[in-house]
């Protein structure tokens, strides 16, 4: 069984700090990581492939530095890795990104399953997976929290809903987007790290390699554009209630009652 996993290298946005004076983001030293839910996607692919003697290919679109993230996936056990990297891809929104990934997957050849993390922590859009499935004209199931069964023709999964879940069956090939509840990603083994970084190769494909239409990639191929970004405004500092805990609590209750909040 051939499985493709799409990953994204992201800045670790949970560690973002702001310069207290200027109010701007401090980006120096902000580590990059493999997007967390993409690791769940890879873990599931590896776990499924192992007993079947399957082949796991990881594809990422990104700058040259994303090579590091791909090597990490090789160290975890992925069989091959492809970096889709070209200046022409820069500025791509989810539509143009999913188009480029679709072209790469078509070039790569036959597959039964594609796994993507549900969403990336730097954008939180959750759009690339479904849009990729649309470009490839295959079914998709998002929010997968458990794989119930898999055979040559069908995959059955639990798809999370706000108040429970649904059991969905899909024909293969299919694209699944994964939640962190799905599994616990493995750590790379020591020997895996050595081979991944010393011996294995990450293939680098450009827009031309995958035969992408220049009008559909990068900024030019993106229907959306970022007009501006700004730091979210914060309310002014409120009142700190002082005194003993008991006094502070008394003041608080008085205020809440005076304002008819309780």
């Amino acid at each position: 069984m051939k499985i493709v996993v799409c990953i994204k290298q992201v800045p670790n946005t949970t560690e973002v700090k702001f310069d207290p004076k200027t109010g701007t983001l401090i980006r120096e030293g902000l580590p990059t990581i493999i997007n967390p839910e993409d690791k769940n996607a890879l873990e599931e692919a590896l776990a499924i492939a192992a007993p079947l003697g399957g082949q796991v290919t990881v594809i990422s679109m990104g700058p040259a530095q994303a090579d590091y993230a791909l090597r990490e996936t090789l160290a975890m056990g992925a069989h091959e890795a492809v970096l889709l990297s070209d200046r022409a891809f820069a500025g791509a929104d989810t539509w143009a990104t999913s188009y480029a990934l679709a072209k790469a997957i078509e070039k790569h050849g036959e597959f039964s399953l594609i796994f993507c993390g549900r969403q990336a922590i730097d954008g939180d859009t959750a759009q690339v997976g479904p849009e990729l499935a649309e470009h490839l004209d295959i079914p998709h199931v998002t929010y997968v929290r458990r794989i119930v069964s898999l055979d040559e023709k069908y995959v059955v999964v639990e798809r999370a809903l706000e108040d429970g879940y649904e059991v969905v069956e899909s024909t293969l090939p299919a694209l699944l987007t994964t939640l962190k509840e799905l599994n616990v990603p493995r750590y790379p083994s020591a020997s895996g790290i050595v081979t991944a970084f010393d011996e294995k190769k990450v293939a680098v494909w450009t827009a031309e390699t995958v035969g992408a239409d220049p009008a559909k990639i990068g900024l030019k191929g993106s229907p959306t554009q970022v007009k501006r970004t700004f730091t979210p405004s914060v309310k002014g500092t409120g009142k700190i209630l002082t005194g003993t805990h008991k006094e502070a609590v008394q003041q608080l209750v008085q205020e809440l009652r005076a304002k008819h909040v309780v």
Partner: protein
Amino acid sequence: MTVIIDKDKCVGCNLCVSACPFAAIDMVNGVAVINDQCTLCGACIEMCSVTAIYRDDEVEGDECSPQSYKGVWVFAEQRQGKMLSIAYELLGEGKKLASSLGVPLSAVLIGANVTEMAKDLYAYGADTVYLVEDKELELYRTESYTAAFVGLAKKYMPEIILMGATNIGRDLAPRVAGRLVTGLTADCTELGIDLEERILLQTRPAFGGNLMATILCPVHRPQMATVRPGVMKKTSPDYGRTGNLVREAYHSRDVKVRTRVREIVKEMGKVVNLEDAKVVVCGGRGIGSAAGFALLEKLAQKLGGVVGASRGAVDAGWLSSGHQVGQTGKTVHPKLYIACGISGAIQHVAGMQGSKMIVAINKNPAAPIFKVADYGIVGDVHQVLPLLIAALEENTTRGAD
């Protein structure tokens, strides 16, 4: 479109370098240079003190002619014959957009035996309801709903489509946008219209909530956006209102549906109605354990509210993810929000800053949560909460007079 730095104007002040969220500007021989990381977000343009940075706004020609698309559409998401509150919230917001554009507001209703629900949609502001009814559409499936929705959109050509950022809306919207070859902006917290350009201004948190970004879809139509439940306000319904019903046939033979829903399972305790709660008592890592939430539960009961949790507390396994408030959880706007042992990371604040009154209890006086709170108490929640519960009890007894 590109961002350009005028080498002659640049004074090498470094302001743009620190303003750039994507490490896309380098200083080369005292002049700022943009590298491949640039996403054209424009943060540097605003920051530049000598206006050396500008955007080359040349937009490539496109086959789409935006002016032939008219009207605002809302996806009226129903599940098993029950309309989701998000549909009414979107109608409330859609009405504002439709009035400023001077166009009708429409709802798209897809399902089996759902005609009756059109009257609720009129009451909440829809002028027209587009109805696609078929027994094949009883349960949501990506491909059948995409086909129904895309069919309508291609025929009636709306300029704006809003969908709820629910587990279903976020599955459907990208598939529809992919097929219509148009832009989609996820999880918008603010929507507006640039009347001059007749363009939807879509503002959303980016970079894990650390930045806000305003996104446009300049030449492709329709302009699509999702909005999370609880972010927009619904208007009070007017059942005297009526509207226009447009029924479209669903041709199941022409639609390729490769998935099947075998079963839908409700999990008790997973539903926490945080979005509609008047009072939310929310706990973070400072609570220390699952057992620690008993105190919060007690306080919430006293106030007629519900218990929420920060991502930290959910990740620690103390409460289920249905309780999570914040960027990756729910957005709440109660009249009273009590943050207990929550530091106030920006991702958390993104989900609760719409609360009318915010009270924070944290033992660290430097915790950022105090910056968004109306009232703060510096202290250990385990000591403060029992006192607060006791004080409220006293007040209730006294309040009886």
